């Protein structure tokens, strides 16, 4: 192999059809509210941890649906479970249980790997 001083860069495109989401299915079983998010961002805007960190529940939920949970799961480490997001969510998503459930489902996936 020759080093030309440049090389192929990996594609940033989400190949959504390749994304199999068994973990998300399990999450929906535990907390069906995961499907209700309309990405309004209230949760992220009001987040107590968000004042100090990048924590953004909207983005976490979205990343799970796109099979890119690795990018956002670490954010959940900052969550203080204070429940403000639950109070502001216009769709009444049980965000605290959702966060706890994400931990249970996806950490399990992580452990399997």
């Amino acid at each position, binding site marked *: 192999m020759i080093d030309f001083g440049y090389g192929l860069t990996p594609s940033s495109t989400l*190949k959504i059809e390749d994304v199999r989401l068994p973990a998300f299915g399990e999450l929906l079983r535990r907390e069906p509210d995961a499907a209700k998010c309309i990405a309004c961002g209230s949760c992220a805007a009001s987040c107590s941890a968000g004042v100090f960190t990048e924590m953004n529940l909207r983005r976490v939920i979205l990343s799970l649906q796109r099979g890119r949970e690795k990018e956002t799961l670490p954010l959940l480490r900052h969550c203080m479970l204070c429940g403000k997001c639950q109070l502001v969510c216009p769709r009444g998503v049980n965000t605290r249980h959702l966060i706890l459930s994400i931990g249970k489902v996806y950490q399990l996936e992580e452990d399997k790997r």
Partner: protein
Amino acid sequence: MSQNVVVIGGGPAGIEASRKLRDLGYTPILIEKEPVLGGHLARWDRLFPDGVDASTFLDPMIADLDGIKYFTDTEVASINRLKDTWVVKLSNGLSAQVRAILLTTGFDLFKAEKKEEYGYGIYERVITNADLEAWFKSGAAPQFDDVKVIGFVHCVGSRDEKAGNRQCSKVCCVTAVKQACEIKEKFPDATVYCFYMDLRMFGRKYEDLYLKAQKEYGIRFVRGRVSEVSEDLDGHLFVKAEDTLFGKPMKLKADLLVLMSGMTPAASTQQLARMVNIQTGDDGFFLPKSLIVSPFTSSREGIFFAGAATGPKTLPETLSEASAAALAIDHYLKTLQR
């Protein structure tokens, strides 16, 4: 002998207005260019938000046309002003002299093939909302049996200056959500994606439908406009869009893509506008006197509108406008007599 009123366009607006005019004691002359009455509604299967069969509305309307002279397969040849009346000549050789004309010419579905990048008419697996309704209505077996991933493209020809339509077609968002749920019922194992720019769930119970689509049907909503579609070796589709909420370009390999064709002014709009010398807006729809207080009155004496001829509208809006226009015509004719 009761007074004649010409109603041009035999869709729901035309039929409803004709019935109301007849009830008010006039003899409507209803003109429809297609062989059957009912307009787009006649080709539609079920209606949002509750999924009621379209025929449950249309059939009783069409069954109740006593006292209305209607001509199908007929177009307007010319309209001329003669003193304080309008002389309408029809393509079948008949003509009528009336004091009031109601334009219920409705809309045409945007020709999805104009959005060349989506490949409608080129890729077999790209269909439109109208095709889907026709298939639902026919009750036929699906054309493709290996449908596992389905995409819905919102705003095809709507909010698109390049496609010549800046306006929002209003009904496509909720129609897409309705159709997404329906198709999920037909293909329960399929994953259904809706690619939207904004979701405009403005009507009563529309938001409920959206929630149901998310929660019960598991429809996946992606905020991002489809940029291009291509075909792979076995005829399946590659759909490119950006997931704007996630901030990444995305690619979907789909087995079926449904284009939500928007509403454009009916082809006859410009022609009729010239015949009676009235204005159309930048968007090509008839321009009423005021969009707020008299959306059914034109700038010319005796010319009235109802329904989607003055812009995209839902069915209930169209029907109530039809009634309102009938009353406005009645009021106008009575004022003339006094």
